[in-house]
């Protein structure tokens, strides 16, 4: 933020609308900056490397003539000298006793699981000589099926994070595990026999072992209490199930069975339990083999545009607090018996003046059409409520699924995943009350950071200090650790033994890939110090627990154990579906729930951040730099609102404002988001950390300051006031815009080729014209080149990206970063357009500012057969391989950047500074040894993971066969939960990629340039409801 004297110009909506209404204009747009044609946008459009991005640190740019000459002279001298270095003498240090299985140079893969908010997802982790380097999904695990998400992909960086807590700390001084164990023994005898004043605070726990330990503790100390708290946990879902079924249940969806899906503010494709699996299931119903294929239809009602919203065939922007009313009407329309009084005076707390609670006519029509669609697909439809919605909406969704006969078909219920499903907000409230009363003698916090993320009205930090002895076990010495007497570094999950349940209850095993790098201990080991099992390792605790639980004994157990470790899960442990009866008094509950805000009131919506979640990943540079879905914002959160709402209040993107809500205030930057509901402001939590580490401390605004226990997801009555300052965001939305305007078409015929970069049709249009995506004229482009055509006789690598499947979750972006040792550059460099991601997810909008359709387009290097980059390289650093790859030889590159200038797709990335961290020892272990770590002054780009191609080719050559289809999987393809990316040999007509490229939806970007890209796209097909006119 800076006190820029120049005020931000409020957005001119009329001008934008006029521009959008222009006939003959390009249909799709990427950002408001583009629509307004701002100077900054022009700067990024026309210059591959804009030098003075607005808001970037100007200090770094200042260089005077004298310095320039010095640098030039020094460079010339160094350039000559650097060629004369001798290779340094290297050492080889073999094992003393070689472990079994390890073949130096060959990676090993181990199955493990990562639990996030209690839900475990199965993984296969690549290990090089004992160093975990890359996370992949476990194809056998029901929660993954081989797919991953950004958090799973980036978790390996968390392991090597140099800021992780490294030692046991007592009263701010370095202590030891032994001292801690001794102290726990002392405390234990002090609180014995009843354990008065002992409190355990955990995050959501699904681990059977940890549960058993805590239960044992509670048995030993009958007066001890167990609390659970997670800032973005599943309270609403739990309470919703309790409301509908009288007991907390776990809801499992089956999107592969659903023809019509209605999401009530649920971002089920990228968040919540089972989202990796759901993305796969959902995508399977969206894939089209040909014009005859059927596809599902998705309706989304939400305030802030999400991945799921972008995938919707119909998306209705609606204030979060209004969705309740919508759900009530929808429920009534699909036959849930919602009694008349509820409809007339719905959702108002006693004493509030009833207002006419009718839906607007457009929404009414929309709702009627949706209801009809649902009713005509009984048993094949699905209504999903989002975590941000109050329990009543969850209950209504359950009731609708019951009424539509979906239960048991597209949705089923199981016992809860959590061992102890409590209302976590109330659980924490109890703890805070006890703390304030001085009842707590010993508080053990196992994971979590409540000082940072507890509701602001709890004053958790102050309450915490009233406990006599406070113990914190966590990955970081964070805000909570600071206020505790004891801090024990937690072992990362890649260093731990443990277990956890998947979204369907399957028990996954957490298996360490590496011994704890620091003095880390698992939660189980810390819990064991309280139960008198302090001598036992996490492995023994886990094994003993399962030995006592499983029916298999002795050798049968050994076999079972081996099998489970190998598979990473215990087979057939998914929780069985149970029949759930709707609660009979369910209907009456509606009227007692919270109110909808009055129409013109601003609401403030809290959401977990798409990349750093509730703040736990704040110190993860990969996640900080991952552009968030739709906004493409990095390194920040923002007060996000619709352009109309902003215009009404005279606000523009970058205004630094004061947000006042519920008696608390927070300063934040404003970001306009097309498609956001009006009169609603969304704020992602997780930023504004004070003690996260060198990466996470600082960026963004701490939304938890505004979040109260009574309004955890949405607060009404938000007030916004301009401060007059400007805040600069690092959003990549308008960077790398592919430039049409810079290449004016000289003839009409060329214009015919100038196709939109993202090709979209409705299902009907597609059936009428299956070739809609193809360029209208297939002029013979061969022979236009001065060079003779190259015959690709061997393998010819190609990629097909299905825009119908891509959910824009960014898993590919982080996977690519992990696989290819891509550096993190920081906010300042991102603002200058220097983010290094080799694959980006371009986001396009179509239509007006209020309800635009949104499309994701993942964009790796196109691997053009006529690659413009190759012709201009003066040193032959980028050349063409006989298999059709644009090879990039880093050691040859001298950094002229001509190639990048000449790349129409803007996929090349340049190391302006020494972005790769060569200095931090802990990061050495992170790197993929099969990919060069690039230095300063070197161009880099996607190579279709050539290291994986070479490895597979060598394997096949040694076995004297061809590379099998599907044997080479690029990192982006492997990470994709939706199977949107398929790679293979296009000379093999039977390969999956050839078949996809043979589909009528196949098209390439900028076909008129005759670059002949190897990466092609399958056009997006929407399946709108003909009854809805937008």
């Amino acid at each position, binding site marked *: 933020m800076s006190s820029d004297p120049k005020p931000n110009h409020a957005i001119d909506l009329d001008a934008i609308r006029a521009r959008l209404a222009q006939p003959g204009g390009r249909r799709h747009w990427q950002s408001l900056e583009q629509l307004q044609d701002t100077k900054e946008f022009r700067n990024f459009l026309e210059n591959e490397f804009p030098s003075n991005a607005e808001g970037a640190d100007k200090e770094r740019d200042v260089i005077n003539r004298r310095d320039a000459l010095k640098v030039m002279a020094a460079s010339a001298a160094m350039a000559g000298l650097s060629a004369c270095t001798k*290779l340094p003498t290297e*050492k080889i240090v073999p094992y003393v*006793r070689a472990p079994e299985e390890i*073949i*130096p140079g*060959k990676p090993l893969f181990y199955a493990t699981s990562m639990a996030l908010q209690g839900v475990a997802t199965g993984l296969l982790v690549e290990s090089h000589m004992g160093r975990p380097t890359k996370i992949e999904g476990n194809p056998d695990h029901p929660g993954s099926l081989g797919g991953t998400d950004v958090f799973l992909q980036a978790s390996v960086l968390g392991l090597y994070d140099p800021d992780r807590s490294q030692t046991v700390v007592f009263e701010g001084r370095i202590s030891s595990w032994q001292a801690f164990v001794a102290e726990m023994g002392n405390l234990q005898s002090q609180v014995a026999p009843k354990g008065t004043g002992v409190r355990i605070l955990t995050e959501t726990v699904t681990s059977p072992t940890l549960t058993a330990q805590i239960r044992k503790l509670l048995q030993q100390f009958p007066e001890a209490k167990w609390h659970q708290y997670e800032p973005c946990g599943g309270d609403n879902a739990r309470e919703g199930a309790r409301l509908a079924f009288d007991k907390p249940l776990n809801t499992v969806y089956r999107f592969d069975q659903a023809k019509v899906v209605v999401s009530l503010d649920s971002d089920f494709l990228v968040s919540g339990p089972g989202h990796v699996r759901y993305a796969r299931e959902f995508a399977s119903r969206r894939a089209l083999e040909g014009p005859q294929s059927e596809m599902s239809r998705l309706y989304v009602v939400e305030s802030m545009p999400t991945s799921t919203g972008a995938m919707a065939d119909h998306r209705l922007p609606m204030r979060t607090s209004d969705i309740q009313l919508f759900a009530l009407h929808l429920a009534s329309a699909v036959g849930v018996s919602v009694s008349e009084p509820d409809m007339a005076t719905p959702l108002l707390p006693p004493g509030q003046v009833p207002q006419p609670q009718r839906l607007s006519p457009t929404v009414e029509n929309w709702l009627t059409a949706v209801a009809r669609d649902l009713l005509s697909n009984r048993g094949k439809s699905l209504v999903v409520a989002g975590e941000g919605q109050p329990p009543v909406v969850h209950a209504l969704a359950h009731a609708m699924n019951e009424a539509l006969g979906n239960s048991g078909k597209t949705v089923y219920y199981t016992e809860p995943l959590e061992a102890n499903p409590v209302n976590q907000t109330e659980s924490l409230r109890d703890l805070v009350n006890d703390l304030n009363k001085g009842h707590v003698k010993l508080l053990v916090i196992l994971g979590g950071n409540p000082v940072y993320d507890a509701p602001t009205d709890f004053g958790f930090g102050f309450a915490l200090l009233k406990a006599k002895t406070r113990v914190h076990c966590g990955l970081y010495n964070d805000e909570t650790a600071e206020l505790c007497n004891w801090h024990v570094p937690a072992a990362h999950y890649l260093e731990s033994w443990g277990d956890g349940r998947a979204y369907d209850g399957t028990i996954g095993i957490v298996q360490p890939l590496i011994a704890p790098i620091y003095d880390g201990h698992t939660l189980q080991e810390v819990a064991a110090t309280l139960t008198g099992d302090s001598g036992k390792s996490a492995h023994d605790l886990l094994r003993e627990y399962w030995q006592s639980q499983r029916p298999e004994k002795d050798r049968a157990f050994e076999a079972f154990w081996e099998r489970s470790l190998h598979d990473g899960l215990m087979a057939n442990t998914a929780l069985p579906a149970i029949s759930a009866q709707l609660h009979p008094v369910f209907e009456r509950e509606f009227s007692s729930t919270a109110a909808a805000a009055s129409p013109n009131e601003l609401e403030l919506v809290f959401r977990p951040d798409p990349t750093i979640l509730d703040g736990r990943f704040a110190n993860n540079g990969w996640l900080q730099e991952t552009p968030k879905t739709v906004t493409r914002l990095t390194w920040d959160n923002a007060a996000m609102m619709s352009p109309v709402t902003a215009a009404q209040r005279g606000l523009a993107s970058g205004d630094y404002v004061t947000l006042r809500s519920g008696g608390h205030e927070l300063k934040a930057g404003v970001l306009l988001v097309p498609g956001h509901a009006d009169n609603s402001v969304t704020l992602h939590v997780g930023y504004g950390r004070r003690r996260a580490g060198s990466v996470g401390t600082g960026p963004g605004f701490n939304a938890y300051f505004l979040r109260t226990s009574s309004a955890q997801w949405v607060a009404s009555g938000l007030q916004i006031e301009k401060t007059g300052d400007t805040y600069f965001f690092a959003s990549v939305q308008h960077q790398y815009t592919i430039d049409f305007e810079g290449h004016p078409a000289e003839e009409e015929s060329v214009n015919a080729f100038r196709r939109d970069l993202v090709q979209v049709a409705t299902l009907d249009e597609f059936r009428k014209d299956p070739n809609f995506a193809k360029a209208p004229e297939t002029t013979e482009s061969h022979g236009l080149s001065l060079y003779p055509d190259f015959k690709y006789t061997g393998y010819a690598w190609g990629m097909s990206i299905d825009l119908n499947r891509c959910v824009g979750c960014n898993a590919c972006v982080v996977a690519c970063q992990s696989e290819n040792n891509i550096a993190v550059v920081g906010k300042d460099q991102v603002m200058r357009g220097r983010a290094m991601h080799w694959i980006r997810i371009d986001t396009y909008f179509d239509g007006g500012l209020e309800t635009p359709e949104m499309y994701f387009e993942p964009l790796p290097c196109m691997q053009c057969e006529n690659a413009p980059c190759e012709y201009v390289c003066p040193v032959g650093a980028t050349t063409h391989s*006989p298999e059709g790859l644009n*090879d990039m030889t880093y050691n040859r590159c001298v950094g002229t950047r001509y190639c990048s200038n000449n790349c129409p797709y803007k996929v090349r990335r340049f190391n302006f500074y020494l972005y790769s961290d060569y200095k931090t020892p802990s990061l050495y272990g992170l790197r993929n040894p099969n990919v060069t770590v690039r230095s300063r002054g070197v161009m880099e780009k996607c190579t279709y993971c050539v290291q994986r191609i*070479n490895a597979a080719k060598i394997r096949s050559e*040694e076995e004297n066969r061809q590379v099998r289809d599907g044997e080479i999987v690029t990192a982006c393809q492997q990470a994709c939960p939706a199977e949107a990316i398929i790679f293979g040999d296009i000379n093999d007509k039977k390969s999956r990629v050839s078949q996809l490229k043979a589909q009528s939806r196949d098209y390439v970007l900028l076909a008129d340039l005759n670059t002949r890209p190897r990466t092609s796209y399958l056009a997006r097909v929407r399946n709108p409801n003909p009854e809805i006119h937008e």
Partner: protein
Amino acid sequence: MPQIFHHSTNFISRMSIYGAVLILGGLALALYEIALSPWYTDQNVSREQPVPFSHRHHAGELGIDCRYCHTSVEKSSFAGLPPTQTCMSCHSQIWTNAGMLEPVRASYRDDVSLSWTRVNALPDFVYFDHSIHVNKGIGCTTCHGPIADMPLTYRAASLYMSWCLNCHRQPAEFVRPKSEVFNPYYQPPSHDHPVTAEDGTSFVDQAALGSYLVKEYKIQSLQHCSTCHR
């Protein structure tokens, strides 16, 4: 106007020009020679090691197979350096008191690795793979030289890219039957020493053997950058 310079200056200027060319040329030649010299490439320079291990003794006189120690050469990019345990499998029985072997015993006893000096090192941006080479009939000695005749190991080739490409451009000149890959005394076929391929065909010159094996082993002449750089 009188001449400013005396006639003799012509000679000086001529000499200066020729001299400059000569000096610059000489300098360039010197640099070139330095770049190719063993001082710079470490070619033929044996390195000091913690234990003066002799390939001549082990691989030559005793005839221990290369793969006894370099276990992963057929499976992995890295040929593998033996763990101390491998040394001790024999040296716990023979030469148990040899002073020369004290570092090996100390390593085994104290569980501290031996730290060998790398002899054949490539820059980090080169991704060489042993397994594909030995599986395609490129013998150890083709690159590592007369290993069975090295009392102390030295680098037998410059390991320059030009040296790599020399073979990649014409693999037929260097390939040998797979059965001979680990034979440290292998000689290319000649009239006196014909070489027999796996199917029994006998060859008396490398050209014939090479072109036969290139076809038989489906050897490709890979020269594009991403073969080794990525």
